[in-house]
């Protein structure tokens, strides 16, 4: 299939976009990456995802698909040859989907809380909550990997993509707060996994460097502070 048949509307720092990039890379799918300016959304983005107006959007032929987890499953089902992203057994698939929902709905918002924490006390509280979640994910990893290197076993799979996309932001959060989130004394299996994940060839070069993300955090905080100042002077 020609590269122009598969387009990805995205923004490099978005972990949700990165997920789709991992999936496309793992499946060796030729595609065109169309970077989006999220402050000034393009006609194409608004037309392709009118409901949410967000990235990522995968455009396959002329059909747009939105929501990163929906897109990754779509990729797995359309390009169904190896490597498979989701396990084949229905129970294992349900387990992977369960943890994906947990990661997105419960765990990653905690990373956001950390980013938004302004004082030492709220930072420490946010990291504590993150640890509790990571413990659950450590157990999930041990159960899922069956002694191998990834959630997917010997190869990268769905859950590796779902959690791995956040590693840049996790590292940026560590630099920004000076606090350790991925700690080998607390979640050793995940620390080992994170290193293997980051060096995988499908992942290499996709996630921006933590320093770039730290700058973005500083920018978000400055904007939030300015907005708050604006609101209070009105």
């Amino acid at each position, binding site marked *: 299939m020609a590269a122009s048949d598969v387009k990805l509307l995205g923004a490099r720092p978005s972990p949700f976009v990165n997920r789709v990039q991992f999936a496309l890379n793992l499946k060796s799918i030729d595609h065109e990456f169309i970077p989006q300016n999220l402050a000034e959304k393009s006609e194409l983005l608004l037309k392709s995802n009118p409901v949410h107006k967000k990235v990522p959007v995968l455009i396959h032929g002329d059909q747009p698909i939105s929501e990163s987890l929906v897109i990754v499953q779509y990729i797995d089902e*359309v390009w169904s040859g190896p490597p498979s992203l989701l396990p084949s057994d229905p129970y294992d*698939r349900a387990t992977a989907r*369960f943890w994906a*929902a947990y990661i997105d709905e419960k765990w990653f918002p905690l990373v956001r809380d950390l980013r938004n924490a302004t004082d030492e006390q709220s930072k420490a509280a946010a990291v504590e909550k993150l640890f509790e979640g990571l413990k659950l994910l450590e157990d999930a990893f041990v159960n899922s990997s069956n002694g191998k290197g990834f959630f997917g076993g010997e190869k990268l799979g769905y859950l590796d993509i779902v959690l791995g996309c956040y590693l840049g932001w996790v590292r940026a959060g560590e630099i920004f707060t000076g606090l350790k989130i991925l700690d080998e004394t607390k979640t050793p299996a995940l620390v080992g996994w994170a290193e293997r994940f980051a060096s995988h060839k499908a992942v290499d070069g996709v996630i921006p460097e933590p320093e770039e993300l730290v700058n973005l955090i500083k920018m978000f905080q400055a904007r939030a502070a300015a907005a708050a100042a604006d609101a209070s002077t009105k």
Partner: protein
Amino acid sequence: MAEEVKLFRTWSSRYSLRIVWALKLKGIEYETIFEDLTNKSPSLLQYNPTHGKVPVLVHDGKPVCESLVILEYVDETWKHNPLLPQDPYEKSMARFWANFGDDKLMKSISQLFIAHEKDQDVAAVAALENLKIVEEQLKGKKFFHGETIGYLDLAFGWIANLVSILEEIMSLKLVDGERFPHLSSWIQHFIDAPVIRDCWPPRDKMIIKYQVMREKYLAAATPK
């Protein structure tokens, strides 16, 4: 060995109803365990240690949690009477809309339900916008996937019952036949469908439950 299927649910949980309907559509026999969420059973906590919520489907001793995850599990395990479309693009759309229903639509309707009078107008705008989006999806269709009930009908099924209950409590009409002809028609078809209609929780009990809930929220967030 016969398969053993158990469903942990509550009498009112809209998420649990999805699974009740799915199992009925597939003709699967199962045991029901009704939970009191103020006094959770050790079994529930053992089967869903992460969230301690319903529904939980236990199949031959193995628990599956999160209603949309359970729906896909049921569909993949018992392949007759498929709930999800076979085509990958149509399947993606189904998953997309189910997420929209839970993340955006349900939230906006809940927000309206617990809004103080002064905030009701703004909350209503969001809820109506989201309902309009669903209305668009139903144009030219009896059910979300066409002629027969499927995944998205089960995902949106709560609308058919809960919205009229909330409307009665709020004395506010949200889904009227004029603004939402397709949604209203879908509600009628869904609510009366043989597989669906005997499963609704008792309406009077629901009214009391949600009335109490609303009063609690309004009291807790009394404007200064």
